[in-house]
């Protein structure tokens, strides 16, 4: 990049955007980069923008394929999926599942990380390895016995079955351990001198010091739990207990009687992706920091 374009950019900033418009032959600096970004952002967002537009349309409007104007149905499809197609209960069930998984996973992993960082004991490395190695066993690798187990325990269609398999987490233990290890010695020493017990130390010192990491992990876990599909599909057969991802599948078959009511299904899709999207936008700071990327 030459010095000239940088000067123009500063110039534009100082004189305000209007002068740049007046100065028609001057393109903003880096226009190729902006064009590339705008194009890729639009391509990635277009399916969801279209889905939102179609969710406001009536059935005839949806079937007029090239009509991509906001429909005359307003938010009627949303009201309908909520009241008539069980969307309210699906979303509630998802919310409960995701919050329970998030809180339990963080709490359990915090305890484990305290043990791994502030204690010295036999088999420590072996136990840490055992925890990390669970990354090799995603749900599909153990799905049949896991289901059999839930059936034998009578846990099918319960919150226990939906959340239990997600409680232990290699990633959360690993990240919290790394974080605790970076805490300055002086702080840990003073806790030791004061004779503060481990749980008090965790509550009074470690958690307040790890707010960013804990919120980042919470968002990641919440999004992960909210988006689960295969396990709820198998372990929950009672529709009133089902989560929203599988609710999408039910919605598809309900809307399929006669002429498929795609506007209705799109309204369901928009609602389903709203909570994780909001979580991402609101907590983008800690989330990106946890991934090693700060704004």
């Amino acid at each position, binding site marked *: 990049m030459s010095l000239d374009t940088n000067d123009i950019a500063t110039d534009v900033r100082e004189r305000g955007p209007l002068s740049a418009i007046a100065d028609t032959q001057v393109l903003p600096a880096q226009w190729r*980069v902006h064009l590339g970004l705008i194009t890729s952002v639009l391509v990635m967002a277009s399916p969801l923008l279209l889905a939102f537009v179609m969710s406001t349309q009536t059935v005839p409007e949806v079937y007029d394929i*090239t009509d991509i104007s906001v429909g005359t149905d307003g938010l009627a499809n949303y009201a309908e999926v909520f009241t008539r197609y069980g969307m309210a209960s699906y979303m509630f069930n998802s919310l409960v599942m995701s919050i329970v998984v998030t809180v339990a996973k963080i709490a359990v992993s915090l305890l484990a990380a305290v043990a791994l960082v502030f204690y*010295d004991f036999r088999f*420590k490395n072996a136990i840490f390895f055992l925890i990390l190695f669970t990354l090799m066993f995603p749900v599909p*690798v153990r799905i049949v016995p896991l289901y059999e187990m839930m059936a034998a325990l009578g846990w099918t269609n319960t919150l226990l079955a939906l959340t239990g398999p997600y409680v232990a987490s290699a990633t959360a233990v690993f990240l919290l351990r790394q974080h605790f290890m970076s805490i300055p010695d002086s702080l840990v020493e003073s806790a030791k001198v004061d004779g503060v017990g481990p749980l008090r130390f965790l509550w009074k010192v470690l958690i307040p010091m790890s707010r960013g990491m804990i919120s980042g992990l919470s968002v990641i876990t919440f999004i992960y739990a909210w988006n689960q*599909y295969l396990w709820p599909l198998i372990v929950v057969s009672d529709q009133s207990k089902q989560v929203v991802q599988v609710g999408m599948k039910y919605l*598809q078959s309900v809307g399929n009687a006669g002429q498929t009511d795609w506007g209705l299904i799109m309204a369901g*899709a928009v609602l389903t992706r709203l909570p*994780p999207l909001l979580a991402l936008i609101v907590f983008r700071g800690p989330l990106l920091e946890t*991934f090693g990327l700060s704004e």
Partner: protein
Amino acid sequence: MGVHENTYDSSLGAYLLLLPTLAAIIAFLYYPSLQTLRFSFFQTFLFGQNTRFVGLTNFTDLLGSQVYLTSVGLTMAFAVIVVIGSLAVGLLVAFLLYEVSDGKAAYLIAAIWPYALPTAVAGTVLLFLAHPSVGIYTHYLEAWFGIELDWFTVGWQGFAVVTVAAIWKQVGYNVIFMLAALNNVPESLNEACRLDGIETWRRLVRVYLPLMSPTLVFLVVINTIYAFFGSFALIDLMTQGGPTNATNLMIYQLYRDAFQFNNLGLASAQSVILFVLVAGLTFVQLRVSDRYAHY
């Protein structure tokens, strides 16, 4: 050796803190994984009421089944395309984000939100927008290129649609990690490139890619696991393995054998094969990268 590990000196205390995590990984991860291995040597019949030890019969049956071998080949092709595709798109977007100087924060959030996109929503939305008869994408593709699209009946088209959906959903995740890696490139190196007038694309390929290699290896592993295990919702909602098994990925075949045909032994054998394949691929990827990556 950890840094703070002599803060507390009760081994019992450490084990107590680890107890919830250990209990959860043993109950929900190690025990069912070992059970999967055991189940794979049994045959179930009468809807799972009866079992009989059959040794390696399930495995020999699978390896002799044309349907299963096709599914394995299909899954490999799917994984290769999804990994390369989502890494390539991710790299392009990450690099543009790295280069842009104005509006970085807004572009960033607009580019990474698909990270929070539920797979079931991605599948449902594209099922409609690319629908052979009412989909707007299909409509314009047919109008502009004068082709006839029907991915409900033409195998490769169904495969292509599912692949695009899988890539779309994964890009946000890759962008986050790639941008974090790009941000770690020393500023002095950037200056040197700029002063030497090295063109942008050259800079990306010759300077940044080698420096990013640890992150790229990590992403190849994660994306491979995603391609093998994470695409279930797409298949279940969009194609149900069809048309004529063209999208019958291994995870979907497993699901069908386990939960539609109640063939628990055969399904467990498929879990074992999936585990061995993914573990083997991960190992190979890490070994290869040991040789070529610059850590």
